[in-house]
């Protein structure tokens, strides 16, 4: 039935087009009307079979066209039913060209535009989905980094606490050093006072030794004078002895008369001898005294020299002590500055510790935010997947 009616007409439509076929159909219709009119008006000029043939052609065409149109509509309905809303590609429309071309073109054009909107949305969703994945990865990296940052900040906080303890220790030590330097300063000051006293004593010793040396020199002069006098006495004793000898000689010449005088002369001689011996003894002793005096004088010179050297030594010690005093003063002042700085550093480290704590809190908050961002991006991705 289908092959008998539809197929030939389909071939003709393919060949000449649907409009031409319809025109042909109308022509047949008009011919039938014309034939009918001819039969009525001029029955002798036309065969009675003509109308029957025409009606048969019209019937054939009508049945064929109805069948074709029905098939086309069924096919069209089938196409519309089988539309894939996801892919929405107009190129998949397999519509035969039996229906008017303009109608089909309009349909495919609309379908194409819808497909484009669909494709555009799919492209956008695909890009959003891809971007969401990148955001998830980034948020994940941020979370990891924030965790690392948090760990590092915790370690920093611990280090700062340790540093704070160390600074307290340093502060204590600095206080000890400060009191030690103060003691050193006081001791140096005390030492300088003692050295000053020592210098005064040494000056006194030097002065006394000088005075003693002068006295000894005077004593030596006097001893020399005594020695000279004793030597004069020795000369007088020698002259006396010579005179006594002359008197003895003269007494001998006088004989008996001179006997008494001889005794006197002998006595004088003995006396001069004793005077000479005494004077000699004095000279010897005075010389011993002079020798001792010289030794003492030498010793006193040594004492003066030693005391002068001691004084010079004391001066050097005094200078050193002064330098020590200045140095310890300087150290004390610097330690004061250091102590102040350490105190400031302690305050600063405490403040840093507080800020680090804030940073840790911030890092935790950031980690939370990054997690939230990751969750939102995951949600976004899932939405695009649902939509896609």
């Amino acid at each position, binding site marked *: 039935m289908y092959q008998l009616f539809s197929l030939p007409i389909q071939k*003709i439509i393919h*060949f*000449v*087009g649907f409009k*031409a076929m319809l025109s*042909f159909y109308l*022509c047949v219709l008009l*011919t039938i009307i014309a034939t009918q009119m001819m039969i009525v008006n001029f029955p002798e000029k036309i*065969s009675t079979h*003509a109308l029957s*043939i025409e009606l048969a052609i019209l019937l054939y065409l009508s049945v064929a066209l109805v069948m074709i149109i029905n098939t086309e509509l069924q096919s069209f309905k089938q196409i519309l039913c089988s539309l894939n809303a996801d892919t929405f590609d107009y*190129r998949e429309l*397999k519509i035969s*060209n039996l229906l008017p071309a303009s109608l089909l*073109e309009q349909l*495919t*054009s609309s379908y*194409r535009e819808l497909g*484009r909107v669909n494709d555009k949305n799919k492209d956008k969703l*695909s*890009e959003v989905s*891809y*971007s969401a994945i*990148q955001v998830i990865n*980034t948020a994940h990296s941020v979370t990891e980094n924030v965790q690392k940052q948090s760990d590092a900040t915790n370690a920093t906080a611990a280090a700062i606490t340790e540093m704070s303890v160390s600074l307290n220790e340093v502060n204590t030590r600095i206080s000890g050093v400060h009191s030690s330097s103060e003691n050193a300063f006081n001791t140096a000051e005390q030492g300088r006072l003692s050295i000053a006293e020592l210098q005064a004593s040494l000056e006194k010793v030097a002065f006394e030794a000088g005075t003693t040396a002068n006295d000894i020199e005077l004593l030596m002069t006097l001893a020399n004078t005594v020695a000279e006098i004793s030597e004069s006495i020795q000369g007088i004793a020698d002259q006396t002895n010579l005179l006594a000898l002359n008197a003895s000689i003269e007494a001998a010449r006088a004989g008996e008369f001179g006997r008494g005088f001889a005794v006197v002369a002998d006595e004088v001689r003995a006396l001069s001898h004793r005077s000479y011996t005494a004077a000699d003894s004095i000279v010897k002793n005075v010389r011993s005294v002079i020798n001792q005096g010289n030794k003492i004088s030498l010793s006193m010179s040594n004492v003066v020299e030693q005391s002068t050297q001691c004084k010079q030594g004391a001066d050097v010690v005094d200078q050193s002590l002064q330098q020590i005093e200045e140095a310890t003063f300087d150290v004390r002042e610097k330690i004061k500055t250091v102590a102040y700085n350490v105190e400031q550093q302690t305050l600063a480290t405490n403040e840093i510790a507080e800020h680090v704590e804030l940073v840790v809190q911030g890092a935790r908050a950031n980690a939370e935010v990054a997690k939230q961002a990751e969750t939102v991006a995951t949600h976004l991705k899932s939405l695009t997947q649902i939509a896609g």
Partner: protein
Amino acid sequence: MEIYIIILLLIILFSVWLHHYKTKQQKTLCVQGLDNITHIKLLISAIQTHRGLSSALLNGDQSKQVVLATIEQQVKSEIKYLEEQHTLDKNGRWGSFTDHWGRLKQHDKARDADNSFKQHTQLIANLLYLLEDEAERGHLNAGSFPKLPNIGFVWRELVVTTEIIGQSRAIGTGVATSKTCSSVHKIRLSFLQQNMQKTINSTLPKLSSLDRFTGEHKALLKIAKLKMQFLSSTIERELISAEKISINQDEYFALATDSIKALDSIFNHQIEQIQQII
């Protein structure tokens, strides 16, 4: 009875003439459509080049001004040719394109790089749709060319792939000029690179050819695939993952242009095949 025979003969003659007329009309439509498509494709290529060079210029490479003027001249002559045909007048996209291009050309140098990129991309998207519309209007589809069942891929997927590479060329040229790749650029480049890979794996193998063109067709596909893969790996290595961007913008531009040219060769080869059929 004779009259019926005469009528039947007349009908047959009229049908033959009608069929011949329709076939001729169809052929004219195809030729016209193909000619329009060829020029629209040239226009797309010129605007893609204009986009890449504008990106370099707006990122600080002043040497591109002269070349841009040449490209603008090329666009102007293509527009003039297509306007003279009067076949695109009924399509609203054409009017939209000429209006948009006029505004873009006037103010492009005053824009920032991102805005210029967006405007050009919108313009190209419009032309891509116009190209497909023109293919449909000229009945350049699988229905008319049963020997090329996937001809529709040429008018959409193939030119869209060219556009993907064109976008990566424009973004990459800007990045190579400024030597900085922002996270947004990284995501965009990465996304385009992913699309490029999809095209290599799914679109290119779907393109069909006439039997006698198969060898040449396969060779062109192989070249395009290799060039796209090299471009894709260069984008990854030199722009996305590189700590310091060292690739020269001209070198990158030439590399991307090479890939576009490889796809254009496939496009022209397909056109040649259709011309053979017509």
